[in-house]
């Protein structure tokens, strides 16, 4: 049986963003979304959610300072 790593307590929530979400989210920020931190395309989570190189992931995780923090990562490729 294969374990779904996304159910693990230490793995934060990863979602693939749609084109629309990307243009909404990154239209009014002072950086290019292509400069976002990268995540390897062979990263276990990337493989688990089936993300393709070039996709942007929204990661929602617990934060010591901010309670909950949303960060983004671009799949390398």
């Amino acid at each position: 049986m294969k374990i779904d790593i996304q159910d693990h307590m230490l793995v934060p929530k990863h979602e693939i963003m749609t084109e629309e979400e990307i243009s909404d989210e990154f239209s009014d920020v002072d950086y290019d979304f292509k400069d976002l931190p990268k995540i390897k395309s062979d990263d276990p989570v990337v493989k688990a959610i089936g993300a393709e190189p070039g996709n942007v992931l929204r990661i929602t995780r617990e934060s010591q300072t901010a309670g909950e923090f949303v960060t983004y990562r671009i799949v390398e490729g």
Partner: protein
Amino acid sequence: MKGFIKKIEKINFGLMSPEDIRAMSVVTVETPDTYEDDGFPIEKGLMDPRLGVIDPSLVCRTCGFRGGDCQGHFGSIELARPVIHIGFGDVIHKILRSTCNDCGRVLLNNEQIEEFTTRIQDAMDNRESLNNILKEVYKVAKRELKTMPEDDEEVDPKYCCPHCGAPQEAISLDKPVTIRQGDYKLTASEVRERLERITDEDSFVLGVNPKVARPEWLVLTVLPVPPVTVRPSITLDTGERSEDDLTHKLVDILRINQRLLENMEAGAPQLIVEDLWELLQYHVTTYFDNEASGVPPARHRSGRPLKTLTQRLKGKEGRFRSNLSGKRVNFSARTVISPDPNISINEVGVPEMIAKEVTVPVYVNEWNMDEMIKYIENGPDVHPGANYVIRKDGRKIRVRNEETKELILEQLEPGFIIERHLKDGDMVLFNRQPSLHRMSMMAHEVRVLPYKTFRLNLCVCPPYNADFDGDEMNMHVFQTDESRAEAKSLMRVQEHILSPRFGGPIIGAIHDHISGAYLLTRDGVEFTEEQALQIIRKSHLKLPTLKGGQWVLKDDPEFGEESYIFKDEGEMWTGKELFSLLLPNDLNLSYSAEISKCPAVFPAEDANVVIKNGILVQGVIDESAYGSFSGKILDKIVKEYGPGRAKEFLDRSTDLAICGIMKTGITTSLNDEEIPEEAQDRINEHLDKKMAEVDKLVESYEEGYLQALPGRSLEETLEMKIMQVLGEARDMSGSIAENYLTMGKQSDDDPYDHVMAVENHSVVMARTGARASMLNLTQITACVGQQAVRGGRIERGYLNRTLPHFKKGELGAKAKGFVHSSYKSGLDPIEFFFHAMGGREGLVDTAIRTAQSGYMQRRLVNALQDLQVKSSGLVTDNQGNVIQTMFGEDGVDPAKSDFGKPADLNKLIDEIRMEGK
């Protein structure tokens, strides 16, 4: 350097060909001498004028510039025989080992050559490291036969050249530059011939890019001679000329080169030529590196080893670390520091001697003309004077004597720059190494003071981690208005009261500042009107007003009368009332004082501090109030009233604490650690009981009754239990002693009055948090306790025992480093030895820790130095890559946070509750 404006388009790393060296050379040096007897440089000598000039009165024969503007020109020496460059010994060895000894092709077959060529080309195109590919090339291309075959003996083809089939004999390197094939020593000429045979294509596979270097250039045939500006000669006081080490070395090279040439031309025997050749190799080798292993260093006549090219660049004192990464700066000063509680935390006391040496440039204008004239009249020797004047045309004139002063005053007009002495109120940068955090460099205001030390306020000792046992500090004077303004708003001491490390005050009271406030504010301290007014005056506080026979303190029309203090004439004033003068009129606060950790505070209310409308209603002022790292009042004042108010609070409280401590006086002696005999008996009795307990544990272990704890072996269980019992033993004996170590009066019936002496100042200091701890005191009075090495009881020493005084395998307390004695009663020799073991471990640990954390910090700084936080909270590196979309995920500046949190909810609730009342 005038007239050269060039832009660097690219930098190319490669080797210089002999042609390059000759093209660059302005003179071929042939004579191994420098100057004629008449003092003129010899043509074609090492000081040939075409190599450049140093003396500003001479004109360079090559470039036409005068000394100072001429940057110097290279010459060259034609070596009679080739010589191997010391830096390339192992490169040459690797290349020779990977090429055929016979035909010179690389020892790879054609497919391999093709494969590696494309891989290297790919890596180069992608700007990737070639190291790993090259390592592989050299590994694959190595084919070595230990012994050469007899004639017509069959050889395994893997030891043969894939191109011509010749068997390959092993080539070895005798460090640093001797290369052997089997037993035969290859001469540099032979090495060069072999390298010449390598084709461009093959050399590319071997990692030598034929566009910038050829393998044979690794062997020198022409030696560049650096210009005289690189190796200037010095004229001694006696008029004698002393040459640079490099010149000496070049003389040696030329001399041997000359002799070799003559011998070769005269057809001298092979043996002599080879000897001279080897000598030439030695001199060229030491010319490059005089510390190479396997080569005896060349020495000066005096026996001192010469400083040659490598030595100039390498190490801490080398060109890189001491001249390029770091430089000496002007307008800086360094001296011993000493304390001065009478200056502000924002200030630094600067000795007059230094103030007259380092200067501030000031533009002369209509409005400061009179002031500037006074500085020039004072000249360089009278304090607020001037050292230099820069005229409008940029000429710098030194203010020397009356004549120059008059001359300058005649010309003086707006637009001149006066380099005037440092004076009170100037901004300077103050620093103490190691500069580990931003508070290690802060901007202070100058106070010019007599004597020769820098003076600093005691509250700034914690951020600099300074004390006065001989510490020295550095001062830098700003030279531009921009830097001064920037420093004043960002680097001033008062802007750094809150540390970004933990979001609380790092600048605050220490030592006597704390105990002084305690002695002033504790219960029962009273002053007569005259004393009180004197204290107020001495502390530079606002004097109270006398209205209709009543003193009114803290009267401020902005606030209500509930924050005023009224005093009838002739009434006694309490210390708490005096301290209240420091507090803002609308300050409300309550917290537990540091002394609340003491089991018996008399009176008990003193342990709970209540400040109502800026009046200290109850409680004492101690470390929790305004100590560095922990001060509650100080913390609140900086965060709510700003750094200016906090600076004022610290300055005034220093004055007040001094008054407080001077009223009582504070002193300590071994008497403070005295306890009655009955207490000593109780401690001994207690220790005996605990020893018996340990013996019982050991006994039960030896007889096998001891039950192992889960997850531990029997021995570990025993050790843990013993450690626990011994810990209790120390703690209990400590708390017995603590019962007798009290700050002073314990009840109203106590026969003595604490203001009058029969009180314990050691305990006052420990309990208020000024210095030392109760543990320190009980170790002096009661029992030192278990000594530890590697986190456990002492195990090391002899076989199965720590010292020969014990039986083998003994497990008792005494045998493993428990110290029953107190520091005051004295340790017996065995205890003393164990104590030294524990102490030494502490010292070694700190030494290792500083080295490790220093390196860790260096790596962190290098990794983070280019990151920047934009105003939106975005963190990026200098390439524009996003590191964090929001700084720290919550966008909070830790220096402006409340102990790391954006806001302290408990504090806010407290405040609202107090307002409601």
